[in-house]
């Protein structure tokens, strides 16, 4: 189907053949990738032995029979990093459209300053986090 | 003079230098290892020397030596003497799956019946096969190396020293007798 798409898009110049061709190739690669995994597991299915035993289906863990359930507690403190990351990632993606235009004619130093103000705000945030000891690991 | 990261760079240098050097891996099955003379590979039994004193079995920390024997009565050589009994070895086995190669049995043997052999390739697929019976232990005897030579300046072993002393005495006596005989003539 993706192939069809590629063909039909190529036939239709109005749709912008380069762009759609590139992503049609991506779609085709997805098909190839899935095919690869399928072939690998089909071969595996044909080659592998199947000898079930209840011991084998026990969780391996550290080699000793598991105690308790499949859940262990860990540091909730990691979670702050997750928040920080999401916020900074949203920030960072703005750099990319900016990077493509800021040095071209008609933007210049003004755009640079705009971005520095933007990043400056977040750097202040990072400093605040640092000051507050969020980045320290106690 | 140290700059930040000097330690990290040094670490990288060490691994890179090691990579260019010759490796120390011995490719064992293709190249036999050169073992030191006193390697503890397997324990050999010189059955002829064994008197079934059971010292080895008793001293073994792992209880891995099995000895069975029976007594045999020897008819008296002299009509006046009593008949003598002696121990005859029925079974001598070492379970190498238990043995920890401490060598105590070899140390305690008063009659030099046990020896270290450097042979080590006796792995088995069945653990029971690792119990070597007396014939197999006897076979290992052929692989026991001659004891390494003494240091050039070492003292003579006691038995050789005493034997030499006795021989010297005999020789001296013989020489003296010869001299006396010569005088008499």
């Amino acid at each position, binding site marked *: *189907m*993706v192939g069809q*798409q*590629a*063909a*039909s*898009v190529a036939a*239709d110049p*109005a*749709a*912008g*053949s*380069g*762009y*759609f061709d590139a992503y049609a190739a991506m779609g085709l690669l997805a098909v190839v990738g899935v095919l690869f995994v399928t072939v690998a597991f089909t071969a595996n299915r044909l080659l592998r032995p199947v000898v079930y035993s209840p011991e084998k289906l026990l969780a391996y863990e550290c080699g000793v029979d598991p*105690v*308790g*359930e499949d*859940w*262990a*507690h*860990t540091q*909730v*403190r*990691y*979670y*702050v990093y*997750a*928040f*920080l*990351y*999401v*916020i900074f*990632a*949203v*920030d960072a*993606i*703005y750099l*990319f*459209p*900016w*990077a*493509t*235009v*800021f040095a071209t004619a008609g*933007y210049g130093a003004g*755009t640079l300053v*705009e971005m520095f*103000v*933007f*990043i400056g*705000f*977040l750097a*202040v*945030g990072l400093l*605040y*986090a640092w000051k*507050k000891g*969020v980045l320290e690991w*106690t | 003079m140290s700059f930040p990261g000097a330690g990290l760079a040094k670490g990288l240098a060490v691994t890179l230098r090691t990579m260019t050097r010759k490796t120390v891996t011995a490719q064992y099955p293709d190249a036999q290892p050169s073992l030191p003379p006193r390697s503890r590979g397997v324990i050999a039994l010189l059955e002829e020397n064994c008197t079934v004193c059971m010292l080895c079995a008793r001293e073994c920390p792992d209880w891995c030596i099995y000895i069975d024997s029976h007594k045999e009565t020897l008819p008296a050589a002299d009509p006046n003497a009593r008949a003598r009994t002696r121990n005859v070895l029925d079974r001598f086995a070492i379970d190498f799956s238990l043995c920890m190669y401490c060598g105590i049995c070899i140390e305690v043997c008063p009659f030099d019946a046990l020896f270290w052999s450097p042979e080590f390739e006796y792995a088995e697929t069945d653990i029971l096969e690792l119990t070597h019976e007396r014939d197999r232990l006897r076979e290992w005897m052929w692989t026991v190396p001659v004891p390494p030579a003494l240091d050039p300046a070492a003292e003579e072993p006691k038995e050789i020293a005493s034997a030499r002393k006795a021989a010297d005495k005999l020789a001296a006596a013989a020489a003296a007798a010869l001299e006396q005989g010569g005088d008499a003539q």
Partner: protein
Amino acid sequence: MSAAALLAATGPLDPAARSFLSPTGVEIVFLLVGIAVLGSAVVAVTTKQLVHAALWLVAALGGLAVEFLLLTAEFVAWVQVLIYLGSVVVLVLFGLMLTKAPIGRSPDADSKNRWVALVVALASAGTLVTLVVDAFRTSWIDLGAGGGSAAVTGASLFRTWVLPFEALSVLLLAALVGAIVLSRGAGRRVPAPRSGRIRAGRPVGSNGTVAQRAAAAPPAEAPETAPAEES
């Protein structure tokens, strides 16, 4: 999610510029992906297995990225993947794992609010669809390639929308400070030596503190306090 799928229906909705129902490959794919997105979105909200819901969300958001691609909004599509798949979903999965999402069904995943939620969802979807349909009517937007590239996005962002962009940084800063204040608030309640325990009731404490406490105190107390501190 459903809005996106309904947006998909606008594909063949523009008969003015093209003959009615002359779907190109792109439009077919757009429609099919839209259906897949809608399907996985519905499963995401109806499944009773928490982590499965998050993973169906991955499928739905990934499908949306494909939709963006098909609309030649290249940059937005990959922002969708980077931010939503790469960080928001990871954040959600992370949170689910931290707070013990069980394997299998969670009986308490049934919310009493489900009908209210459905009504709200349908209402907002209806609003959006009405809005979009009314805004564009039968106008044909030629989706030329490169229309949504990073350069175009950057040009419009830094020529036209500079002020909102700068305001955004203040918003992000506020979110950052908020997150830190929240986490610090939680952090102060937690006593210094930390420990985890597994549900069988055996302490796997750090420095053996919990083990000692459990040995000293009646066992009913120590295990009860530990999870309350963690959360």
